């Protein structure tokens, strides 16, 4: 088999961080090559070098034996390299079709809307990535936006495809579909670099795996000759336990009660009368397919969206009309699902981001003055105990790797000592070690008698952590089940709106 892409001794240094350290990688024709590595191991950096976004300090990138010196992504695209980024790069105000053809519009000056939409429709059929080309990107769910990104790369006729954590944002169903797409592409001989933190996906779809650690490529192995355990150990450099230990525990009094909550966003009713409780010492999991109102529900509980009707009661007090600030101060922590849009200010320093939710309170502020000493100290302590790398608290949050950005949010929200933690997709984009760490933190909170509302699109996560599971479909709670005994199938049916109890 021919070698398609070859990376030799690539080194890239950022101020104070050696992101890539003599990296070597060979991508063969027609293979799916997975790259695994902890958060901040240098995966995205390497991909950006291949894609011409960054220039390597030394080393070489060759395509079919010919050395390449891309100085811009345009050159990489012309050479046939396509990349889907970890974070979206779409223009929300444009339609799906417009986003896909932008930069390579078929017409000259005149934009032919009908034709383009038709062409995009064909394209989306061809790759089994169904979208409505005429819908504005801002109206699409996260999962659908991802599809647009992927279609966009196909539209530019990529010969080599780089997918940087494409599945982090997808629902399990969409992941299945994406895997299908990747397999079809492999049949067409298109080599794919696939970055993921999910060992099962890697195991399922890839031919070979390269493991990166601290900027170096530590091993490349044939996928079918390795085990998830071995991969995890290679990544972390030590033994990893892939199990959740959750001792049984009696829940305490009710912390949060949601009663007949209705939430309207835009003109659509997204939450249609939801009622449930979360108790002390319990993890309440909210399962559902993306776009069924789960995120509007949590935004209403945190105060970011107004409730149209119904009540939200926290520790016995009606907070339905209380401000975000008050709710936060009362002890509600919230890990939003969209870390870059809601959870962080990318142009703020890490230290500032660590106090984003508490900067008005002592010890971080006294008489309206920020207490730099306390803020710095807090940031140092949190980045240490949550292992945020690199530990440069005065650099901008935007310079962190995706997973480390997520850790900053987690550290901030968990360390506030909340009565209630609402965690929306808390482990998205994290490596196995970090996921383990977060799960342990959630269980710690549970043990300390705190309430946790966990919203996740991943059934595994919901099932392994939750004491009770609420299934949401089309803005309604289909059922609330005890966590220990449900099966994937049961949840899966409920999530699509079928209630076996009621119908059979």
């Amino acid at each position: 088999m021919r070698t398609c892409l070859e990376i030799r001794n690539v080194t890239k240094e950022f101020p104070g961080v050696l992101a890539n350290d003599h990296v070597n990688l060979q991508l063969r024709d027609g293979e799916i090559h997975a790259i695994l590595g902890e958060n901040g191991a240098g995966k995205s950096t390497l991909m950006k070098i291949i894609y011409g976004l960054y220039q390597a300090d030394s080393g070489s990138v060759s395509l079919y034996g010919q050395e390449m010196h891309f100085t811009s992504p345009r050159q990489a695209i012309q050479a046939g390299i396509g990349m889907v980024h970890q974070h979206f790069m779409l223009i929300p105000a444009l339609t799906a079709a417009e986003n896909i053809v932008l930069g390579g519009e078929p017409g000259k000056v005149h934009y032919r809307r009908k034709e383009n939409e038709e062409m995009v429709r064909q394209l989306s059929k061809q790759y089994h990535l169904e979208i409505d080309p005429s819908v504005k990107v801002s109206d699409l769910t996260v999962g659908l936006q991802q599809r647009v990104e992927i279609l966009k790369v196909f539209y530019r006729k990529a010969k080599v495809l780089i997918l940087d954590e494409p599945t982090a944002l997808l629902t399990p169903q969409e992941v299945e579909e994406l895997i299908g797409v990747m397999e079809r592409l492999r049949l067409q001989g298109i080599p794919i670099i696939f970055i993921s933190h999910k060992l099962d996906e890697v195991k399922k779809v890839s031919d070979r795996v390269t493991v990166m650690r601290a900027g170096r490529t530590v091993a490349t192995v044939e996928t079918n000759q390795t085990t998830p355990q071995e991969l995890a150990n290679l990544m972390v450099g030590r033994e990893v336990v892939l199990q959740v230990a959750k001792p049984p525990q009696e829940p305490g009094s009710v912390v949060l009660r949601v009663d007949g909550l209705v939430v309207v966003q835009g003109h659509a009713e997204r939450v249609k009368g939801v009622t449930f409780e979360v108790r002390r010492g319990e993890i309440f999991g909210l399962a559902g397919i993306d776009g069924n109102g789960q995120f509007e529900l949590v935004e209403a509980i945190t105060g970011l969206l107004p409730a149209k009707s119904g009540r939200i009661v926290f520790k016995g007090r009606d907070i339905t009309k209380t401000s975000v600030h008050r709710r936060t101060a009362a002890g509600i922590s919230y890990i939003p699902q969209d870390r870059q849009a809601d959870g962080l200010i990318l142009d703020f320093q890490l230290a500032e981001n660590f106090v984003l939710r508490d900067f008005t309170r002592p010890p971080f502020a006294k008489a309206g003055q920020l207490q730099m000493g306390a803020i710095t100290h807090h940031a140092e302590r949190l980045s240490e105990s949550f292992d945020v790398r690199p530990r440069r608290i005065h650099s901008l949050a935007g310079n962190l790797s995706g997973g480390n950005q997520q850790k900053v949010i987690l550290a901030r929200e968990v360390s506030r000592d909340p009565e209630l933690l609402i965690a929306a997709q808390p482990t998205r984009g994290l490596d196995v070690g970090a996921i383990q760490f977060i799960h342990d933190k959630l269980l710690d909170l549970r043990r300390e008698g705190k309430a946790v509302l966990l919203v996740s699109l991943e059934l595994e996560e919901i099932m392994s952590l939750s004491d009770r599971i609420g299934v949401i479909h089309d803005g309604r709670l289909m059922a609330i089940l005890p966590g220990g005994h449900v099966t994937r199938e049961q949840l899966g049916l409920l999530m699509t709106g079928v209630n076996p109890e009621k119908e059979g």
Partner: protein
Amino acid sequence: MRKYVRGVLTPLVSVIVALLIGTVVMLATGHNPFQAYGALLSGAFGSTYALSNTIAGAIPLILSGLGVAIGFKAGLFNIGAEGQYWIGSMVAVWVGYSVTGLPPLLHITLAIALAMLAGGLWAGVIPGLAKALVGAHEVITTMMMSYIAIFLTQFMVENGPMMEKGFTPQSPLIRSSVMIPKIIPRTQLSWGLLIAVAAAFVVYWLLFKTTVGFRLRAVGLNVRAAKYAGINVPLYTVLALFFSGLLAGLAGAVQMLGVQQRLYDSFNSGYGFTAIVVALLANNNPFGVILSAIFFSALATGGQSMQLVSGVPAQLTDVVSGIIIFLIAAKKLMQIVQTKIAQTKWSKHQNLGSEKGAQ
């Protein structure tokens, strides 16, 4: 450290390129650039007199530049600093001549405080509330309010209630108890300089050391995250414009009490507009504002003697400032264009206008 180098690099390069283009223009029109720039330099800094006038001219620019910078930091473009400057001037002059019997310190303080309040309300009430409540764009509203302010002030001294008895359209002279004393007699340089420098420190402190500044900057950078952080975004939008106008009003007051001492029939200080360039060149850094204000003031004072000595029209300095604006705007524009293209064409990183990696 690198951050600072980078922060200073763009303005420096813009200034140098602009001066170089100025050179080309001079050569093309048959002038000697060395002689001209030499004259400009010595006209701006060459004598105590020149130097003090340059610094005196920088004072209103520093103050209104700080105002514009605060707006930018909160993501707001206060284009109406000129109008807020005139409202401040008007109030200061009125308090200056109509209030009697106060000791100097008190009189000055009163005039300044009321002028600041007036400037702040001028920007905060209508443009601020309109933005916060119905989303009316501040560029339009502050600009409109600016015209209203200018015409209002003009009316006041041209047959209006503030016109001095007689035929000259001007206000009465302010009382000596309210005049800000000069640092160097017979120049324009007053102790207003102290106020301007102190204001830069206060603005720096406000922006970076207080919770109010934290909120303003958060709103300026990411409205959604600001909401998530529990910040009352409409309130801080209003506050940002209020502070912005406050400083422009202060600029007017200091200029009236320290230099002009009455309102004349000429309502085109240009300070409020140059303030925008001052803030841009300083990249909204409060201390940078001091330097860039001195630079623009030097162009203005030095330009006169350049014209006298070398025959190069003083308007060349306008060309130079125009080019600087253009270069800085172009850099911002380039960043935006690059990002847009990146988002669309090459799917580059999405942090608007920055080269910090997206992940």
